[in-house]
């Protein structure tokens, strides 16, 4: 099974026309096709130079001419490849800029919406009936969902544009985790999931961006609860191992199918079984968590088995500056 998947992937990679179509590029603008063409030309020119060199060794000018001609063709192809990469990079830059501008523009109306709903719910204008409150709650929760998505998109666009900065300061990771767990209790109870924390005492403080690390932990815990099966359990561990703090979160959820595991940290990726279980979700949480942990000098990983559960972990260096 493993071997077939591996072979399938190689065949997919070799399907150049399909890959070029995916980028919406013609053959002579597509880096994969141009590389392929260049490879063939290099092979042919080597063979031709060998044959010519063998047969017409008395005429070095002819051999030199063929070698120079082939080199020039290769040079033109190299320029075309560079151009096509530039176009792809430019398209990527424009996309990131577009996401950034749209997200920023969405923030103001969302703030208006959020604060207006808050005023209506607070009873500052008039007293609110229970039925009204129920619908205001729907409005609030949905505007909050939009705000969270916009915030995630802004982080992703910052990562893509290389503008994802981090202001490091001393952080008590154990405390941060306790806060996140506390804040997630309502969601966990609503999902019929129990959170069990096993956090070592007297852990050293670390230099990270507390708010960003908090977000990484939130994303991991949110996933663990979200994809738990009925009456699930989420276990959280934090301990010191040599010069690192090691965090681990273990759930008894739907797990990640083997075929999807290599893609799980890619942005916007959601595995089929996750989609079946919960349609909500942007596929950005793990991508953001990974970016935060790696930018903090740590490492992140997981092991998972479909229908059994997943264990995500990260480590953060204790003495990082």
């Amino acid at each position: 099974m493993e071997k077939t998947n591996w072979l399938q992937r190689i065949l997919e990679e070799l399907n150049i026309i399909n890959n070029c179509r995916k980028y919406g590029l013609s053959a002579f603008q597509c880096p994969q096709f141009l590389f392929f063409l260049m490879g063939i030309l290099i092979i042919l020119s080597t063979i031709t130079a060998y044959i010519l060199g063998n047969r017409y060794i008395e005429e070095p000018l002819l051999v030199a001419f063929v070698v120079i001609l082939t080199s020039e063709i290769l040079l033109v192809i190299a320029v075309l490849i560079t151009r096509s990469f530039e176009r792809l990079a430019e398209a990527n830059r424009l996309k990131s800029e577009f996401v950034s501008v749209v997200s920023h523009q969405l923030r103001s109306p969302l703030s208006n919406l959020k604060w207006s709903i808050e005023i209506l719910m607070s009873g500052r204008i008039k007293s609110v009936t229970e039925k009204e409150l129920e619908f205001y709650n729907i409005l609030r929760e949905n505007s909050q969902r939009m705000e969270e998505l916009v915030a995630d998109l802004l982080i992703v666009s910052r990562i893509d544009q290389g503008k994802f900065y981090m202001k490091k300061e001393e952080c008590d990771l154990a405390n941060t985790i306790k806060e996140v767990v506390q804040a997630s209790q309502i969601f966990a109870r609503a999902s019929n999931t129990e959170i069990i924390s096993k956090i070592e005492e007297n852990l050293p403080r670390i230099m990270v961006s507390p708010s960003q690390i908090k977000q990484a932990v939130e994303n991991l815990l949110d996933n663990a609860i979200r994809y738990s099966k009925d009456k699930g359990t989420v276990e959280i561990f934090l301990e010191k191992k040599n010069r690192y703090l090691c965090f681990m979160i273990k759930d008894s959820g739907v797990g990640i199918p083997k075929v999807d595991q290599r893609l799980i940290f890619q942005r916007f990726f959601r595995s089929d079984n996750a989609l079946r279980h919960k349609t909500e979700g942007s596929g950005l949480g793990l991508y953001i968590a990974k970016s935060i942990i790696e930018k903090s000098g740590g490492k992140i990983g997981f092991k998972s088995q479909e229908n059994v559960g997943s264990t995500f972990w990260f480590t953060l260096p204790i003495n990082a500056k």
Partner: protein
Amino acid sequence: MKTILFIEDESALQKTVGLVLNQEGYEVLSALDGELGLKMAQKKRPDLILLDLILPKMHGFEVLKALKDNPETKDVPVIVLTNLEGISEVDKALELGATTYLVKASYTLEELVSKIKTALGDK
């Protein structure tokens, strides 16, 4: 009654924040662009200024600098209230003399009021 000048081009925000602050016992003056905001700050001498950054006619940073360069307004606490959350913007605002930097998306109105009260020494 203490006076708060709110320099913000979104009229919807002027309404929501204005209503809550009025109910909390503050007089709220509204300016929909940076230039007008600066003029009103110099003329009315408010007790606190709530300042957005992306503003028509004059950017929030220019307003903040002008306020802090003027001996008559330099002691008025300024809370920057924006949706920009880059580290460079936060650093620049604090460097120019802002009392606090708040990102609209991260706060509820009640939390905002609480921050304003703290800055005014009413809490």
